[in-house]
């Protein structure tokens, strides 16, 4: 039987601070880059200690031929330890896990909406979409953050040829307000791909419904195993509880019972 998910010892290539509390971790990997799809994630064992015990799920940000990157923000003990891991050290990785975004629905315009760390998997998605880009198709990226210091990856998106618009809570960059306000302002055609906090995704689901534009949203939930075994990370959908790690993390916004 063909393996779909791998457990590997991955060497840390770099672990660089992008902004205060934000890190970009680059890991060597033989098998994950070849099969990873945008929207999938990896489960990282941050150390071999028993506390913090659980792996940390992080969305795949970019892939190279023999490496991949993840972005993370230091929010607690686990991510603090991860931020201290040095080049040359090894991390136990499980991945790629989850379903990933469905790229086949992308039409004339793809609107990528990122809230905070939501930029991480959407960069990978934008890369893939940019490669398939046909004539007049458009890639629009909307980034929302608290302040301008927390706006990540804007340059990466513009380098890929995306039209980038930004909203910050304090107005220090782009629109003062929410990223969903940006979404409501632009001409709504095509399809939406979104990753970010749940309130943002809920609002996007409402916009998607109102304007009859399909939206795929990438969700987060507390995870123990990340491989579909523990049934911990469920979300309530029209089909009943579904596992965010297995049936997700990407769902059609209309499937979720918000």
């Amino acid at each position, binding site marked *: 039987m063909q393996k779909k998910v791998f457990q590997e010892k991955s060497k840390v290539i770099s672990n660089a601070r992008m902004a205060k509390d934000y890190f970009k971790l680059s890991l060597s990997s033989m098998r994950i880059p070849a099969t990873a799809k945008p929207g999938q994630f990896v489960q990282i064992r941050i150390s071999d200690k028993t506390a913090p015990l*659980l792996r940390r799920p992080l969305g795949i940000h970019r892939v190279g031929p023999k490496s991949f990157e993840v972005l993370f923000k230091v929010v607690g003990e686990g991510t603090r330890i991860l931020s201290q891991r040095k080049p040359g050290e090894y991390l136990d990785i499980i991945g790629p896990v989850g379903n990933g975004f469905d790229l086949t629905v992308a039409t004339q315009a793809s609107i990528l909406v990122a809230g905070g760390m939501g930029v991480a998997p959407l960069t990978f998605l934008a890369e893939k979409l940019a490669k398939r880009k046909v004539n007049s198709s458009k890639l629009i990226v909307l980034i929302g953050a608290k302040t301008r210091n927390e706006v990540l990856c804007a340059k990466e998106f513009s380098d890929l040829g995306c039209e980038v618009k930004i909203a910050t809570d304090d107005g220090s960059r782009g629109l003062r307000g929410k990223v969903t306000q940006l979404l409501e302002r632009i001409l709504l055609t095509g399809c939406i791909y979104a990753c970010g906090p749940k309130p943002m995704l809920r609002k996007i689901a409402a916009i998607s419904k109102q304007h009859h534009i399909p939206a795929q949203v990438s969700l987060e939930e507390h995870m123990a195993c990340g491989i579909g075994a523990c049934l911990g*990370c469920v979300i309530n959908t029209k089909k009943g509880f579904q596992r965010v790690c297995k049936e997700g993390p990407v769902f059609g916004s209309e499937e979720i019972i918000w």
Partner: protein
Amino acid sequence: MLNLNTYIGKLKLKNPVLVASGTFGYAEEFSDFIDLRELGAIVTKTITLNPRQGNPAPRTCETPAGMLNSIGLENPGLEVFISEKLPFLVKTGVPVIVSIASESGPQDFIILARQLDKIKSVAAIELNISCPNIKSHIAYRISHIAKLIAQDPKSTYEIVKSVRKVTHKTLITKLSPNVTDIVEIAQAAESAGSDAVSLINTLTGMSIDVENHRPRIAAITGGLSGPGIRPVAVRMVWEAYQKVNIPIIGMGGIMDTSSALEFFLAGATAISVGTANFINPRATIEIIKGLKEYLIRNKIKDINSIVGSLKI
């Protein structure tokens, strides 16, 4: 020649390393990571007669050296289990131990056991009378305090006895650590005809997010598992080992070979790996290899000879 063979009732295992119910799904999820054929036995996620949706999220949270869960026995029910999950399990060639629970007193246990008794490929039945996360396990109420079946020796005896009457398969009873005296419960299971006891299930626990004053899992309380609970589990295995004659399947925070060995020395005939499967899906295989190395290093021929070999 090294012997890892172990008996649980009539059931012969090629090695004493099992997986704990609820931590291994129905095994499919682990086929990418390990050769399932190497396991001593597979204990399924608990099934109930009818499908259960389980509890709302968040269902898990991390705790110091452990985790809390309140899944609420989500499962597809007996019928779907038999048609969709069992065939894959059977194909592994490893003995399949089906964990069952009731939503309505003894009746469901009896129906489930009767049905499973007819299925040749089911190697054994584990009675989950100790899940802390569903209300239907309530045996009775005293002073408004709900109790699990496994918190009361009389209820434990009655359930085991009634299931014993309807199946000849190896019967394992999974006990709760949330009791004053584990020995009296283990003895009740033994005298009612249980072939073995599994201990321990999770410890009831609770964790609070102090920023928003809310419980960190939706069900408020849940079951604590992981290496943090291991000393409690080892102690209970040791206590039960001195008073019961049926095999004990030890579990609770086993992460590696050394923690597995603690259970054998305390009196466990076999062990189950639980939460460690979430952190290292290869934990079981690494433990099987590690046990062999330990036996060779210490010139021990038979794993059974270290069971209960604690020196005091």
